[in-house]
């Protein structure tokens, strides 16, 4: 490791140290142990910016840091891969972690929570794991920290462990993602066993190995390209679990049981992003498999629409945001699935910012509302908390995809990429159509949320006299609000297409043009591998305009509908007019029910049946052998009467029997 990158491990280690300090001596520190975390994440942020600058200066690193175990066959190790993608992600993760730490001073400390050292230790461990995941240079290391962020998520969702619901939600979150990780782990093992390497980058990466194996080798009885698809889909299991894609999305809404800053950090901006980030990280591998890409795209498009419809009928502000999160990750998956690597990453970064903003904004509202989360009990908060309102509004418009907020640019690029591929691929077109329809719903539920929360008349006592929020809450909101407004400037792709301006900065960044890059991990390398052809309606320019017009139009339509429907001081509950459709959406399409049934209605009775079988059949045989021996002994001992005469008679009989046997054998009787 050279130059600035010598300090790169510190980015990861700072939060670990903070975790250790808070865990051991947190209870003796002021502010419930918040300071080590703030300092550490601040340090990580600063160093991440340095790393980004280094990458901008044309450097990258791909270094081995620590070897778990090595043989000539394979090496299990931890390494550091800092390229444009991970550098960008590092900045975002450490920025949000830092802001969430600061915000927590208002949300947790000022509210007199107990167990704060545990809270900050959890945040520290989470930040450590997430950053380590981001810089991972191989799939095993990714898996390791993928699991660890799952643990932190469990601990933080279950932070209020004295309640009944929080531990249950924590359990569900871990279990559902574990189910996805089961496939992920098989994928890791399969990739390790077939290619002998787990590295993401370089000549010895599994991507390179797979590329050279295609058309020439078979693995475990499968052609190499089928095998790439199989293993790719196995790894995708973990992605679907962590990024809350259908059908493993059910844990995310429940995860809102955790403290709101945790929701912002983990369940919106970073951990949930881990899944999509993983797809981006090993995009070269997925690019080899058309089937895997199509699955990714379709799952993404479907999830985007599916979750958006549920978001429209929720009354709890955090639930709306939870479903919008699921929906937005669907867009990123769609982008990845259509080969829109840049669009996916762009939306990932933007979403991290504006969703963290929305959750922190919701957190501020919840503080103000004395921990009331039902939007129907809010209203009229606009005048009383302007900072929150305007930043929240910025985040909402970004989420809804209204020009010029950041979400518009990235979502538009996703849809554009999907459209040009979809014109020749019917399946992708279907995914595109679903995602496009979801834009309308997104606009609707976002504005509905803003309207109900901030506009109209206060609908409860709490809303009339909101609790004041402190400066530590306002600063993060303001910072993120500005970023949500200008974030789109990272990649103004339509302007580049239409006006020929060189403003697609992120595309060039991820492509390594003018900045550091790692061979094989660049946008054009991926584009060469992805097999999709592109078609246009009215040329590239026409398609850009058409796509942007469609998505903006639908977003505005949805937003406008919500704006009018929920206007006035006392808005009515319009969604109830949808009748059974609403019931279906409120019940989350019975997704929870069937998954709970799988656990409680199927697995548990099966387990009980096994237990009965074990106790009766298997143990029955064991005990049976014992009983038979005892019973036999009981009977046999009756031979021993204590009568000398009987013994003598037995001896005689024995001799006679012996004589007969010997006689028969000796042929005496013949």
């Amino acid at each position: 490791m050279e130059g600035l990158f010598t300090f790169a491990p510190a980015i990861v280690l700072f939060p670990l140290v903070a975790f250790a300090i808070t865990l051991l001596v947190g209870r003796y520190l002021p502010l419930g142990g918040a300071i080590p975390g703030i300092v550490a994440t601040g340090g990580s942020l600063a160093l991440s910016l340095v790393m980004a600058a280094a990458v901008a200066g044309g450097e990258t690193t791909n270094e081995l840091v620590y070897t778990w175990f090595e043989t000539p066959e394979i090496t299990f190790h931890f390494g550091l891969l800092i390229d444009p993608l991970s550098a960008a992600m590092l900045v975002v993760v450490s920025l949000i972690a830092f802001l969430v730490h600061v915000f927590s001073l208002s949300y947790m400390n000022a509210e007199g929570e107990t167990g704060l050292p545990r809270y900050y230790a959890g945040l520290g461990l989470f930040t450590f794991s997430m950053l380590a995941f981001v810089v991972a240079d191989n799939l095993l290391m990714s898996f390791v920290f993928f699991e660890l962020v799952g643990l932190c998520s469990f601990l933080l969702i279950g932070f209020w462990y004295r309640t009944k619901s929080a531990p249950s939600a924590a359990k569900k979150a871990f279990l559902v993602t574990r189910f996805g990780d089961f496939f992920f782990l098989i994928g890791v093992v399969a990739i390790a066993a077939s290619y002998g390497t787990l590295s993401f980058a370089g000549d010895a990466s599994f991507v390179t190995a797979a590329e050279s194996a295609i058309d020439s080798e078979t693995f475990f009885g499968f052609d190499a390209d089928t095998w790439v698809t199989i293993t790719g889909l196995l790894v995708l299991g973990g992605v679907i679990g962590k990024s809350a894609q259908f059908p493993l999305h059910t844990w995310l809404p429940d995860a809102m049981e955790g403290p709101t800053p945790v929701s912002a950090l983990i369940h919106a901006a970073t951990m949930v992003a881990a899944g999509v980030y993983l797809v981006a990280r090993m995009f070269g591998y997925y690019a080899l498999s058309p089937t895997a890409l199509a699955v990714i795209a379709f799952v993404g498009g479907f999830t985007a629409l599916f979750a958006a419809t549920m978001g429209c009928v929720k009354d709890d502000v955090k639930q709306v945001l939870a479903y919008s999160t699921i929906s937005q990750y669907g867009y990123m998956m769609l982008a990845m699935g259509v080969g829109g690597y840049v669009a996916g990453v762009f939306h990932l970064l933007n979403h991290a910012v504006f969703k963290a903003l929305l959750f922190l904004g919701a957190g501020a509202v919840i503080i103000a509302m004395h921990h009331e989360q039902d939007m129907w009990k809010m209203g009229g908060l606009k005048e009383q908390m302007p900072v929150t309102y305007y930043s929240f509004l910025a985040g909402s418009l970004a989420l809804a995809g209204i020009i010029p907020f950041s979400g518009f640019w990235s979502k538009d690029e996703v849809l554009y990429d999907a459209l040009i591929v979809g014109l020749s691929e019917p399946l992708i077109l279907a995914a595109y159509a679903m995602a496009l329809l979801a834009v309308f719903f997104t606009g609707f539920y976002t504005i509905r949320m803003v309207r109900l929360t901030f506009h109209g008349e206060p609908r409860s006592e709490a809303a009339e006299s909101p609790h004041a929020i402190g400066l530590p809450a306002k600063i993060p909101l303001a910072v993120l609000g500005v970023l949500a407004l200008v974030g789109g400037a990272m990649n103004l792709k339509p302007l580049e297409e239409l006006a020929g301006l060189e403003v697609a900065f992120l595309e060039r960044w991820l492509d390594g043009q003018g900045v550091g890059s790692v061979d094989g991990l660049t946008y054009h390398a991926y584009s060469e591998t992805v097999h999709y052809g592109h078609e246009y309606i009215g040329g590239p320019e026409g398609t850009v305009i058409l796509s942007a017009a469609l998505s903006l139009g639908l977003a505005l339509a949805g937003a406008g509908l919500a704006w009018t429907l929920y206007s006035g001081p006392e808005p009515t509950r319009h969604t109830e007019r949808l009748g059974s459709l609403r019931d279906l959406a409120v019940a989350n399409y019975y997704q929870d029910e069937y998954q709970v049934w799988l656990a409680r209605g199927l697995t548990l009775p099966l387990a009980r049946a096994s237990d009965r079988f074990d106790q009766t059949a298997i143990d029955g045989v064991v005990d049976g052998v014992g009983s038979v021996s005892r019973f036999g002994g009981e009977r046999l001992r009756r031979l021993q009467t204590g009568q000398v005469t009987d013994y003598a008679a037995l001896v005689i009989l024995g001799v006679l029997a012996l004589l007969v046997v010997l006689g028969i054998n000796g042929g005496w009787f013949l």
Partner: protein
Amino acid sequence: MIELLLAVVFVGAAVTFLAPNRIAGKLAFAISLLPAGISLWMLTAFDGSGNALLSGGQLAFESQAEWFQVGEYAVSWFVGLDGISLPLVVLTTILTSLAILSSWTPIDERQSQFYGLVLFIEANLLGVFVALDFLLWFVFWEAVLIPMYFLIGVWGGPRRKYAAIKFFVYTNVASLVLFGAFVTLVFALGGDGGVSSFALPEITQAMHAGGIPDGTSLFGLGATELSAAIFVALFLGFAVKVPIVPFHTWLPDAHVEAPTPASVLLAGVLLKMGTYALLRFNFTMFPEQVETFAIPIAAIAVISVIYGAMLALAQTDLKRIVAYSSVSSMGYVILGLVAFTQFGIGGATFQMVSHGLISGLMFMAVGVVYNATHTRMVTDMSGITAKMPVASWIFVAGAFGYMGLPLMSGFYAEFSIFYGAFGSELLSYAPLFTGVAMFGIVIVAGYLLFAMQRTFFGPFALETDYELDRAPLHDVAPMLVLLALIVVLGVAPDTIFGMITDATDPIVAAYGGEAA
């Protein structure tokens, strides 16, 4: 050196036995630190290489002396250590020390006898791992049962007699089978220029040099059938000890009735006797038969994993949950062994150590909860964390270790096994077996999370009316030590994994497998 190690423990056991009850616990703990120290010193001074039983293996701390003669066969005092046995020796000494510490609270009668027996178990366990002569090994193997029988039968729960007798008879019958099988093997290999002693290395090398001579006929079986029959009989004999489904039913009963420290030793080390013996005997001596029986063995390994986990899911007694999950974890060991690859066998051995630490920790944590609440039923408790935070969080940490959380030893063990098993060349359908077995990691998460949610989280409630106090230091300290070891092995598995694979690689290499 090994003689010193054993002598210290045997003498220590006798001394403790005679000591007054009042000081027996402290005395036993002090004594148990000696073997722990010696074994740790051995870890640093270890100079062996290769496998103890195979040619080219260099034993550490070897010593051999003639003992007596059975016909033409010599029996000797033959002890030594290699990379497989040394980690288990260290595990045994450390776990015994900690188990003694953790029994200060619950054991309140006949302490001197109790601690004397615990040390006596330790001595025999160490004997099992160091002995390299079959008869010597068998003496230790059997002698382990006696103190364990008394620990369960005297200090156990309400059904202790049933559990103790079941444990004793079941495992003893299994010992009979394996003894008969092994003696048959020795006699089949004996004769002109054949094996002339019960020394395991000699027997192993004879097996690798051609096995049972062609034309041998014993009990009407030819050489091939005889090898297969002996392999199966040995396997069954060890299967009870491991235990492998369907020979596992003594385990939950024994665990539930046993006092905490006995459970710790039972799960932590006694089960490893079975897997250790399987590795030493079946898998080292009979590679060809392993290949023949690979699919059935892999099948019961997978069944053990899934079925054991399903049984654990149905339990409401914390101890039964952990007991059944041991069945599940041992299934992974068998899967790793039968894969017959570097990472498979190495990972299986690593899992023995790792599971010893983790299950020991879990049983201690359950014990601490039980000491305070006098119940182990998940349904009787709720929100214990509020009253006993330290013990509860340690339980949670241990449970995540059990689930194979990365950076704890269980993950590395399981990952090695999975990786080793997936690419196995000896086992057909290896990816399928591995994939199904891996589903165990989901079920284990299911039942442990379920148990934790019910027991430790939620609003506080307790069916029994005991005052909950914070656990004393001598209850918590051993758990923290174990947790630290688990994390250290998880972060830096190479501390022992290199040593282990150094000893297990020759097993794979000797059968034409790829050597490292």
